[in-house]
């Protein structure tokens, strides 16, 4: 018998079934309702934007690994997730097709790979790319079209609200409103949220704290909290972007603080800022303070005795 083959390593010798790629696949599945509804509301343009975004995200990650002689990492599927989320953040316009490619470059190469790849990035790639695009291509990034292919640009409910116009809750909930591909339908995102929770991919802490604190502060600032919950990128951001493992705290206490901070900044920008939308900026800002939150939310270990200073 080939005894010299006995493998000797230290315990444990058993590993769970969960893998990084499995988790990413769950996130992709959770995004499917939003993808389907975006295609339903915005037709082939939506499909094209999503396709280009995913393909170019994969391509840029492949290229970076190739150029830097690193092992290929496409298998962990994180580039697909970034691609889909980025696409859902773009307006349903023809210009979004090439903007998606530029955005993928920023998200994958600059925000993720240059910082050391998956797990090392400070900012959520899709979120940082969206902000980059909004600042760089302000015109294209705000050319919102109403659902349907009649090609009429119109203001988003949030922008309309800044001018004193209102939109019905039901339209907001279903997504029958102008806005970016994925942020229009709260319903689709809610389905994804339930999937993520039931698969234990994320915990409830960040989305709940985020949405609750947005509602709380918009209410304090004298506006309609329900309208703010259902409109803009709040649901999409709270469920899919703020919960990005890499750029959010690991403890439940940290997650609550993180979500709360996101909500406060979102409400402040929406109500007092000159921009109609604040979700992306709030998440980016809170991404930056994650190390600080982590530092002050280290749990007391089991049986920890107070150290003598």
């Amino acid at each position, binding site marked *: 018998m080939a005894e010299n083959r006995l493998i000797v*390593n230290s*315990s444990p010798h*058993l590993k*769970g079934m969960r893998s990084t790629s499995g988790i990413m696949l769950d996130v992709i599945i959770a995004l499917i309702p939003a993808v389907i509804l975006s295609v339903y509301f915005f037709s082939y343009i939506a499909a094209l934007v999503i396709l280009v975004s995913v393909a170019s995200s994969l391509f840029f990650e492949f290229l970076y690994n190739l150029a830097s002689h690193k092992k290929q990492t496409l298998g962990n599927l994180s580039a697909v997730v970034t691609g889909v989320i980025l696409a859902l953040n773009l307006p349903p316009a023809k210009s979004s097709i090439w903007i998606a490619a530029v955005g993928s470059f920023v998200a994958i190469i600059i925000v993720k790979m240059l910082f050391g790849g*998956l797990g090392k990035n400070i900012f959520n790639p899709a979120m940082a790319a969206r902000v980059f695009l909004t600042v760089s291509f302000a015109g294209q990034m705000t050319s919102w079209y109403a659902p349907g292919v009649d090609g009429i640009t119109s203001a988003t409910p949030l922008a309309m609200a800044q001018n004193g116009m209102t939109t019905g809750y039901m339209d907001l909930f279903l997504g029958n409103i102008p806005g970016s591909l994925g942020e229009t339908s709260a319903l689709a995102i809610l389905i994804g949220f339930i999937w993520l929770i039931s698969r234990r991919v994320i915990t409830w802490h960040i989305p709940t704290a985020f949405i609750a604190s947005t509602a709380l502060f918009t209410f304090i600032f004298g506006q309609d909290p329900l309208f703010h919950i259902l409109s803009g990128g709040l649901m999409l951001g709270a469920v899919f972007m703020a919960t990005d493992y890499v750029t959010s*705290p690991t403890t439940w206490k940290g997650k609550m603080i993180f979500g709360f901070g996101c909500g406060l900044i979102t409400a402040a920008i929406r109500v007092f800022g000159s921009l109609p939308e604040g979700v992306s900026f709030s998440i980016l800002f809170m991404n930056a303070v994650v190390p600080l939150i982590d530092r002050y939310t280290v749990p007391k270990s*089991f049986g920890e005795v107070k150290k003598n200073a």
Partner: protein
Amino acid sequence: MIGGVITPHYKNTAKSETKIMPVPDKVEIPMVHHIGAPCLPLVKKGDEVMVGTKIGDSEKFVSAPVHSSVSGTVSDVRKILFPNGSYVDSVVIKTDGRQTVDPGIKPPEVNTREDFLKAIRESGLVGLGGAGFPAHVKLNPPKDKKIDYLLINAAECEPYITSDYRETIENSWNVISGINIVMEFLGIENVIIGVEDNKPTTIKILNDIADTDKKITAVPLKSKYPQGAEKMLIYALTGRIVPAGGLPMDVGVIVMNVASISFVAKYMKTGMPLVSKRLTVDGAVIREPSNVEVCVGTYIRDLMDFCGGFTEDPYKILMGGPMMGVAQYTLDMPVLKQNNAILAFNKKQSTLPEQTACIRCGRCVRACPMKLMPQQLDIFANSNNTVQLEKFNVSSCIECGTCSYVCPAKRHLVQAIRKGKTLVSMSRQKK
């Protein structure tokens, strides 16, 4: 319990009644089966020994004597290389097959607490749950520590292992009378037997026969790894938290494994020291997975043959369970007293997946029963950051392996943390 993880149970051998393995031709009994000072061999090559003859002892307090498990002739006293890298004195005995019992073996006369502790020391009993802490030390807390709870650990949370389960079913009365003996001599009033709820038979049997004495109760615990870890068990059964660096006696508790307590009763009746042990033999390549009672010192190779040999080449041999067991480098390693399983795995089960980047998912943080941050400790250990390791309480890690198990990036977390613990203890020694 805080944290933890639900692992597969793989209790394939739960229904396997204990088989007694015939005495092998040769056994090898190392002088270390326990935490503490190694024993010195009391025999030399050519000496005749019988079952129960003391062959190793130490003058140190934290140690436990070693006895021959067979009758025969000492054929060698040599050094054996343990998987932890240390060389240990070891007595090789050629058996004569007669299993003659040493004439000195008789039930101990025990009237006082001191007699009892002396008898326990002579029995060579060590914690049979796996750690092997000498029982007479554990049962002898300093006077200022008032003990009001005796906890019996029958959780058996490691996958595969069913040897404790078989003990509770086959030797239920010994478990109960062992408890009564310890209660009597140590003056402890409350006893709780902790059992994972995947073993309802154990709970029922023990509660049935303990009925006459209401102070002994078997309590179901959630089947969640590492429920049987000492600190987790104490917390689950009494709500008490053992302070970091402290012992169960600091919170008024003594914890004994169910096989240990059962042995106490057996020893008081017969005087036969700890020379045999029930093991679960299982794993994908074992032809006949079963529970086997073997002489301490039986080579794994002989035990494997007794269980029908391998169905295919083993790639990993474990002493203990898959979560905390020790991988063996050879089949010529003898079974130790505190050993409760030998597992043999095939190639697929034996190879650990490659590590990938941490995605900060926080699963390890949520799963850690000690409320540590394994993902941070991994970073600090890999960068030799002793200061941060100490700040994040690396020494509190009980090495249960839950963090490594749950990690989707397949990080070798507890393995890195072990290195971190070593770094910290080395830097403390320097100071």
